[in-house]
């Protein structure tokens, strides 16, 4: 497992029905591109987050493919319309097979 990986998300706790809300996500990850060499001239193997998804109550909101050109600590900010109270789940997929996830509840009044 890549070290020091920690997902973080920022979702408003409450919203009005039909509101467009802004969601911010950040995952600390080295995003080793596979293009760099170490001090001995050997290529450092690629190790990146290759996919990020967000779902709301089981319905997919965003599904992103990440490429090696994306730099350290990938940050995504996007908007979503929330029709009802529920839970956002966020998932990041690592090259090494690890999956990191986190969830945030939102109450719609």
């Amino acid at each position, binding site marked *: 497992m890549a070290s020091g990986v*920690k997902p*973080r998300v920022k979702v408003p706790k409450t919203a009005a029905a039909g509101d467009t809300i802004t969601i*911010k996500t*950040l995952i600390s990850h080295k995003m080793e591109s596979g293009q760099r060499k170490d001090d001995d001239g050997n290529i450092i193997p690629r190790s990146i987050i290759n996919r990020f998804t967000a779902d709301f109550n089981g319905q997919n909101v965003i599904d992103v493919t990440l490429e090696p050109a994306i*730099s*350290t*600590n990938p*940050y995504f900010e996007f908007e979503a319309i929330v029709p009802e109270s529920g839970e956002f789940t966020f998932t990041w997929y690592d090259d090494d097979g690890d999956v990191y996830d986190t969830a945030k509840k939102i109450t719609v009044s």
Partner: protein
Amino acid sequence: MQLKAKTIGLVTTLSIACGPVWADPDTDQLTINGDITIITEAAAPSHMEYIDTIYSGWRFRSDETQAVQMDDFDNPGMLGVENALAAWDTEEGSEGKSCASCHGAAESLAGIRAVYPKWNEAKGMVTTLEMEVNNCRETRMGAEKWKYTGGDMTDMVALISSVSRGMPVNVAIDGPAQSTWEAGKELYYTRTGQLELSCANCHEDSYGLMIRADHLSQGQINGFPTYRLKNTKLNSVHARFKGCVRDTRAETFAPGSPEFIALELYVASRGNGLSVEGPSVRN
């Protein structure tokens, strides 16, 4: 009428062609998390002979880079602060102590960043925050000291800075610290390297101009440790000094050396009046 319009058109074209695209710091104002107001412009301290107004480096950055610092969630430097918070509570060394064992919450150190480097009576010298952190580790915790510009150290300094954000820098330059301060001033105005550049050549004589693709700031250190987009990590003051001296094509002083301690005190004093900003975001 038509002639006048043409004249205006010509003048406009000329000013675009000849005028500097970047000349001065912008006029944006910095508030972090909508809560902490940061002073990014102040009257220069009286010891500065050639500059009237001091500006934080934040004012020289693009709007996009500026925005990253305005919310702690967006600021990647806060990842370092988070790491340091974990280290803060971790007991280490022969004494079985953590930072929290003596200091309690990290907020208890609010105001500390603003007055360092500072004269240390017991040691009989000016010490930096990094030296004090290692002093704690070695004498109080019985732990191994951290590398001066290492990740652990820079994260910890970022944490200590973060609780002082918004407070004005106010390092003392008189009394026992005066001789160190004067040594730092001497270094600031001494040209080094094959390019024969002093700190002042760029950061005092030429701030606001472009140095290749970069908008030259006054070289203030109120925002350190600084998260740089170019190397995606927190950078310490002495690591930055080393980078600048290297860029003049000189042999640099070592981080933590008496020369850089003196220079840090002097450069910090040029920012007396600006707010502590660290961890800031720059390119």
